[in-house]
């Protein structure tokens, strides 16, 4: 999609996430009481404008999926707000929740586990429609689903087949077709290509881009591969240990990363283009701490090459440091 197109929607926020928290209780001790929490998501805020793609990167376990699932309310957040089309959906339930899910759909990471092996592809794709439009004419439904299948690049015969008869890339297409079936406004794509081979990955990425134009979709695109995220997104949020440490448009992130973690992340991506150049790579020490026991203050200070003493006590908040570039780091206070 072109950047000019995007600007038309810039003013309209489709989704706002405010200080989202998702703490999973940890049971233990003699009486199996809650003795702690996995702070999978610990105060995440961002907005997604209509028609844009927000990329979310971060290392494994930093809370990307949890964020995505909380937005779809597959999980009930323990704190914060999720506002979709100006409606606070953090605590809606029952019928309203089901209705909202018509507008938000998800594409999953594992093309194997995300399709019910016992269902025909046609059933998989028509099920969402069936769930919401019980009385839909069978023939109509079928044509609609067939159209969808063709649209995502599958033959019509796929309707009568089972998932096991397809390759990973094709399955991911089925998953995408299912997500499209309800004509959602927002699609959360949780690492949709990380299980795929490079050549197939590019097919799926291209498809997603085309669909966005065609169906006016807004994406929350989650991935751990920075180059993929950059390719797909308009803006990028970088997550670390349940927190967003930096949000900015993709060029700022790539050309001028401000948070030390973003900087390290970008420098760590092996890049064919930089071949041969002796580049200064920032190699981080150690591993990501456990979200069950996150460091005090700035979550990154234990590995940060630029850490100051203060970092261990003050938890920085996301601030707009440059226009459109929000960073959570006291270096920029």
């Amino acid at each position: 999609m072109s950047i000019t197109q995007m600007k038309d929607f810039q003013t309209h926020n489709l989704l706002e996430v405010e200080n989202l928290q998702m703490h999973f209780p940890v049971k233990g001790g003699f009486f199996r009481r809650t003795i702690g929490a996995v702070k999978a998501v610990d105060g995440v805020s961002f907005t997604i404008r209509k028609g844009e793609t927000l990329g979310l990167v971060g290392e494994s376990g930093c809370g990307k999926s949890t964020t995505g699932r909380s937005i779809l309310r597959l999980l009930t957040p323990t704190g914060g707000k999720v506002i979709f089309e100006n409606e606070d959906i953090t605590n809606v339930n029952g019928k309203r929740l089901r209705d909202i899910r018509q507008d938000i759909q998800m594409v999953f990471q594992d093309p194997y586990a995300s399709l019910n092996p016992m269902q025909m592809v046609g059933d998989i794709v028509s099920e969402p429609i069936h769930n919401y439009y019980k009385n839909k004419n069978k023939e109509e439904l079928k044509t609609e689903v067939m159209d969808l299948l063709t649209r995502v690049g599958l033959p019509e015969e796929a309707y009568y087949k089972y998932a096991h008869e397809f390759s990973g890339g094709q399955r991911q297409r089925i998953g995408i077709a299912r997500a499209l079936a309800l004509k959602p406004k927002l699609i959360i794509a949780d690492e949709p290509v990380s299980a795929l081979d490079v050549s197939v990955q590019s097919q799926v990425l291209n498809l997603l881009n085309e669909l966005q134009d065609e169906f006016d979709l807004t994406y929350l695109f989650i991935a751990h591969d920075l180059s993929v995220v950059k390719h797909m997104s308009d803006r990028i949020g970088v997550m670390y240990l349940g927190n967003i440490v930096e949000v900015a448009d993709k060029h700022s992130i790539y050309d001028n990363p401000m948070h030390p973690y973003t900087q390290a992340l970008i420098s760590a991506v092996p890049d064919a283009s930089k071949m041969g150049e002796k580049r200064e790579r920032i190699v981080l020490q150690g591993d990501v701490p456990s979200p069950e026991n996150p460091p005090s203050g700035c979550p990154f200070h234990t590995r940060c090459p630029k850490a100051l003493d203060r970092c261990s006590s003050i938890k920085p908040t996301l601030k707009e440091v440059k226009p459109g570039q929000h960073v959570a780091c006291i270096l920029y206070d």
Partner: protein
Amino acid sequence: MLKYSLRRILGMIPMLFLISVVVFFLALAMPGDSLTGEIDPNNTDPEYIEQMREKLGYNDPIYVQYGRWISNFAQGDFGTSTKYKIPVADLIAQRLPNTLFLGVTSLIITYIFAFVMGMYAGRKPYTKLDNFIGGFNYLMLAIPIYIAGVFAIYFFSFHLGWFPFSGSVDIATNEGTLDWWLSRIYHVILPALVLGAMGTAAYTQFLRNDIIDNSQKDYVRTARAKGTPESRIYNHHILRNSVIPLITFLGFDIVTLVNGALITETIFTYPGLGQLFLSSMTTNDYPTLMTLALMFSFLVLIGNLIADLLYGVVDPRIRLD
């Protein structure tokens, strides 16, 4: 680990209590009481029986009976067997060693056979001998324990005369001597084999399949890449992994043994707890019956506990806290 065990043990108390209530009410619901059918015109008379009923408290309110039973029970007084007229505790003390001996022997046999056959079959799958072992095991798994017992007696005792068909020891031997032990072993082998046959078959197949599974694991490839000799890979790397589930079965074996002992001991007239249970069932010997039922339930609880604990001990991945 300690904490975990403690919690598990404490958790067993309400379970035991509930079971005791069930046992008590089941016993109560069972038709007749222990004096039912005590009729012998030469030795007793109706008044005596009624007198005994009163004396044994069978005419008290139910909750009083339960309270008395459970509080005595908790103090280690299991009541007096109405059939043998001695404290149930003594009765059990007499029989328990036999059952234990049978159980332990059967376990040893099971594990030895299962290990030898399972390791061979797992290391050389799809060979002739493996197929033979597999076929044999399928057969063993399909033969119900009591049929195995009947066949064993018919064949090994009656036809071949290799083993005795009843009893636990030869009277002519003096307790504690080598002969005595040999005689006990001689008497226990056939029932123990029968009792262990199914387990042996199941474990052999399990071990075999697990070894085959494990031999395709990445860590085996790593070990080979290190230059570890094949025999060490099987006997050490793979076995150590395959043994884990097998060892934890030990806990569940207790359950199987309880069920098995009931049948085997009866068929082989081996004086153990299983036989005692069935005879107390037919003679309405409720104190014995209830104690045994509760004891068996307790054993099952313990078995599960052991299984869980063993898991934690043998598998470093499981941490019990």
